[in-house]
């Protein structure tokens, strides 16, 4: 099976003030479709930058990023937006729900980018909410829900347009252990039952255990787990 993601000789650096900061010099990785990868590493190791590049939010300064047989690192901003809408679901540490929209409307957001009619959209939204077991909270506003519930709404939002890829940035970073486990189980379920490819950045070794494999990143390079610790 061809890799879903293929990163070839990816480099990333930027200039801050007079200083040139290099995050990656020569990063190579492959992610198979249906994989569940946890990326761990200390602050500043480049985890989030890597995730952003995978999500087409950030672009490398060198090398190639292949997704599903196509290069995405040279796409324009508009093309990337379209690509994200079709292929990627994002899950953030602080949920990033729109505070003025209720749960269902938040979940519906990505569907506004499709040609679906309002009935079909509502149907898809309810399906997604059912999957995260929040169908009874559809009309609740974000500030009326707990952190775990909000994160589950965010997951529903990420999967509602049925993307192949889920990118999670510290999805349990703001939650207590029990809630975090629930969220991670949901992700695991999405991976095993729905064949979603998941890349998850985390600090938390307990969270990483839910993944199929864990990559350790340090100073812009993948290292063995023992070295990283």
């Amino acid at each position, binding site marked *: 099976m061809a890799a879903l993601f293929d990163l070839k000789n990816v480099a990333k650096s930027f200039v801050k003030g007079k200083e040139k900061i290099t995050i990656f010099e020569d990063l190579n990785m492959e992610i198979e479709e249906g994989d569940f990868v946890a990326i761990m590493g200390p602050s500043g190791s480049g985890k989030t930058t890597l995730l*952003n590049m995978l*999500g087409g*939010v*950030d672009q490398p300064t060198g090398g190639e990023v292949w997704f599903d047989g196509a290069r995405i690192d040279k796409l324009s*901003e*508009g093309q990337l*937006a*379209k*690509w*994200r*809408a*079709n292929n*990627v679901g*994002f899950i*953030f540490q*602080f949920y*990033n729900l*729109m*505070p*003025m*929209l209720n749960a269902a*409307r938040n979940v519906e*957001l*990505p569907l*506004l*980018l499709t040609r679906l009619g309002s009935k079909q959209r509502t149907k898809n939204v309810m399906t997604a909410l059912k999957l995260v077991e929040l169908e009874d909270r559809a009309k609740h506003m974000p500030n009326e829900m707990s952190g775990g519930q909000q994160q589950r709404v965010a997951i529903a*939002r990420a999967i509602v347009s049925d993307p192949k890829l889920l990118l999670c940035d510290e999805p349990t970073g703001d939650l207590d252990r029990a809630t975090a486990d629930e969220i991670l189980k949901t992700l695991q379920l999405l991976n095993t039952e729905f064949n979603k490819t998941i890349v998850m950045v985390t600090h938390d070794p307990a969270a990483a255990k839910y993944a199929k494999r864990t990559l350790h990143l340090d100073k812009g390079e993948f290292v063995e787990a023992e070295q990283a610790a």
Partner: protein
Amino acid sequence: MTAVWHYISLIFRLLIRIVTAPVWLPFWIVWWLFEKTGINRLIVKVAMALGLYLVFKNLTRKPLRLFLTMFATFVAFLIYGTLSTFESAIDAGVELSADDRLIVVNKINFTQPLPISYVNRVKGLENLTDVTHLNWFGGYYQDPQNFMAMFAVDEDTFLTVYNEIVLTPEERQDWLGSRQGLIAGKSIADQYGWKVGDRIPINSNIFSKADGSTSWEFDVVGIYTGTDAQTDTSSVYFHYDYFNETQSFGRDFIGFIGVRTVDPAMNEGVIKAIDDLFANTPYETETVPEKVFNQAFIEQIGNLSLILGSVVFAAFFIILVIVGNSMVLAIRERTGEIGVLKTLGFKSTRIFFMILAESLLLAIFSGALGLLATSLAVVAVNQAPIQLPVLVLTPAIIIEALVIMIGLGLVTGILPAVNALRLNIIAALSRQ
């Protein structure tokens, strides 16, 4: 301590509420009516159906700020609307003047008299259809402060030259057949409560009768309206013959002559013919189109439209600054959310238009409320017992206001919209 603060603030708030009641009460009533009649829900539905619901939700997320910004815009358009109707009413005297009507006045100044014999001499000229004459009476009713535009006229030719005056056939009959008859415009008749059939005394601050009295008796035989809503109906007319026979000095003199030409194209020739006719007489004339005369008359007051214009401009400038600023702020606060939307795959251009739509909605909705309030103010002013020209919220003013609303919406929205367009996702997400 906290309790004291609480009560102080409560009292203060109550006071502010009461003092500002005229301002917020109409808003509240509109909102309440909208809520009761379901219009509010309809607005939400329409916004949703149009795919504007993100815009709508963004707009209404901070009700206080929305209210303040809307209020500022509302105020600007209220000022704009009211002053524009006012200016338009003043200009109406010029706009509504007939192109084929000429005014013949004494060359020295229009307050100087002309001999009545001039009327017949003008009648003998070519290319004119009707000639009439008017004389300023300096009339006032009861109190010298209640002065009014009152003219002694030739009853018959007056109605043909000034055909914007509308009388019923009976009124017309009574007017032509009476000696002490008087016709008053609707607005002034309403002001003093005159009815057809009333006998009223009117004083002159210029003329007096032979016995030294300055009071004349008149019969109200007609209350005229105008052919146009903005036609001035604050003037009063009565018979020149009655005036001429009873007053004590300057007999057989008139104020000015009104002439109707066959065609406006003939005006030039007629003007020259009249002024040449009376050149080198003790009473030389100056003939001008009515439009020019009225325009000059308004200019006497000073540069009124410049003053009104500056005020409107100042009001708009304030609003532009306030609304523009709160838009920039509102969008800046949403930096993180915009980043998220972009991450979800919303195109930058889409976000750009969403923000423009937001500022446009804000400007148009509050501006429309301002115009609505203007129309109420116009009704109130027209009903009030004060001597003001008839105010009309003309379509031209409404269209101009709409254009300004759209302009305001675009100008205030463009900066934050461009900022959002350029916003880098990574910067946005890390700044939240």
